[in-house]
């Protein structure tokens, strides 16, 4: 059953739905004398989510072939982008907007193209971050973090 890759996501969704319903049950009884309690609606939602994810799993089990998917680019660029965003957020306050953003924009340009012409790409990153600084800090009055607080 679990050899079918198409089943992984619906199964994860089913697990999430069950977890949500269990958490909802822990909020208490759904109906009290005063009326419906805060657990009533989440229980309904959890039950509906379990129903839909079960339907999806059944659908996948019955489907003879996997549906067509859009053509994917080779590599794991999307995973690197998630990592880049995660590290950027971590560094944002500590290193400040200018340093962290320049590194982030440079990394994304490289991830969406290649490591060729790094100096040109670094320059583009600097210009983009500079323009972003002017826009956020001066045009929209946003206080961007700096390394000195």
């Amino acid at each position: 059953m679990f050899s079918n890759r198409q089943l992984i996501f619906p199964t994860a969704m089913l697990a999430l739905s069950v977890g949500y319903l269990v958490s909802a049950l822990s909020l208490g009884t759904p109906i009290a004398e005063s009326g419906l309690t805060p657990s009533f609606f989440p229980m309904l939602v959890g039950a509906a989510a379990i129903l839909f994810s079960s339907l999806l799993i059944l659908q996948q089990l019955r489907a003879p072939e996997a549906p067509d998917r859009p053509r994917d680019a080779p590599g794991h660029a999307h995973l690197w982008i998630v990592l880049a965003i995660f590290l950027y957020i971590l560094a944002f306050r500590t290193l400040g907007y200018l340093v962290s953003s320049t590194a982030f924009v440079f990394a994304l340009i490289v991830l969406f193209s290649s490591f060729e012409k790094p100096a040109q790409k670094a320059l583009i990153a600097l210009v983009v971050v500079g323009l972003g600084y002017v826009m956020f800090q001066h045009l929209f009055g946003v206080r961007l973090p700096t390394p000195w607080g």
Partner: protein
Amino acid sequence: MDFILLVMNSFGLLLDPLNLAYVVLGFVIGTIFAAIPGLTATLAMALLLPLTYTLNVETALMACASIYMAGMCGGSITATTINIPGAPSSMMTALDGYPMQQQGKGALALGHAAIGSMFGGAVGALLLIAVAPFVAELSLLVKTTGKFSLLAFALIVVVIAQRGRIPQAGLAACIGLMLATVGLDAMEPVTRFTFGNANLTAGVDLMPVIIGTFAIAEILVQARTPSDTTAATAAAGKHKLRRRDFIPPWSDIRRIGFRCYFKSCLIGYFVGTLPGAGGSMGSFLAYTEAVRTSPEPETFGKGNPQGIAASESANNAVCGGAMVPMLTFGIPGDPITAIMLGVLVINGIQPGPQLMSDQAGLIAPMLAALLFSAVVLIPLTLYAIGPYFIRIVSIRKDVLYAVIALLAVVGSYVATYSTFQMFMALAMGVLAFLLRRNGFPVITMLLGYILGPNLEEFLRRSLSLSNGNPLTFLTNPDSLFFVLLTLVFVYFLVIRKPADKAATPDGV
């Protein structure tokens, strides 16, 4: 009548250079985003959302209106020039636009698309201005039970409109509802699903949900899906676009006929009022109707300007239609109106019947900007930057996506100066990416998240008022009306199963 006068007076706000600059800038950005395959006006709007904190609400809403209008017509650029619709709503435009481009009449096709968009946008906006106050008054008749049934109707229709993937849509809606239940309960002092994290006590904020769902997820999707338009762009570049070629001859417009334009506008407008239908459904139905009533149906798909006119009139008229339920009931019809709703909520404006009476002054400028965008900016943009349209597609994608990522991540910080919101935006982006990769429509998740709090509140209130009797939803006439309406939609969309599957709602 007072509201119409208010809208007319709001045109004065466009004389303010700052307002005008934001409206024009919004339109240009919306056009660029809609023209580039893979990017959408929804993404442009999501990136603008954090900046609305620093703008006054009228200006922010005016900019949103112009992005919306630009997003609907901008998709026709690449649909015509390289046969890749920049937006799903321009899918039908490509059927006749691209053959015209191949015949060396690309500029003329874009001219027809602009005239159709202008006509559709204007009629949609005028109908909205005329109809919205009446709908708002009617909505006063809807009481608590009716409100629950109406919200349930909207959510159910959005789910069942996703033909062929109803379980995915239903599950996505449930995920949205789950997100909506995080935080402090609206009626009792109980926190839910926060798992001890104080940052979640106030719930999952709208900003990271929108930025994650539409901006970060889009970047991840683009990283996985190559969209090489180089060859098509080079081929299109061979046909030089000259300004004078954009203006369609009067004989062409007469051949298309006022009737075709107007009928397509009405189709688009009414489709727009339905939750989840969107511009692609509107343009598909209008195109089908144009083919059905044409004396020469065999010419469609081979470069008939009537096909372009019908498609573009309808998808731009959708803008006006989709705003009716958003402004009067707080029910967004598509992703863009969902973000516009976010702008309203962020600025403390609650959509609903009172909005049109108590805060009409805030809404009127937005409608004026919508009309202005349709009548003035669509033709002006075509004339001013039309010859350079094809270059828009050639923008360096690596730099573009890096800029979008920067705006998205920093934008999620702007609202609360909190890195927690940035992490939330990333988490939402990853979730939306996984959902999209597995064929789940994220619009239903967003709608579940937006409608969730009211849905729960009205359900609990209705059942409290009726001492827990669920029959209250059938015994109250307003509620019964929406229950029956839901059944009608279920019958037509699920049980009867329409034969045509070509038209799918905007598939985000």
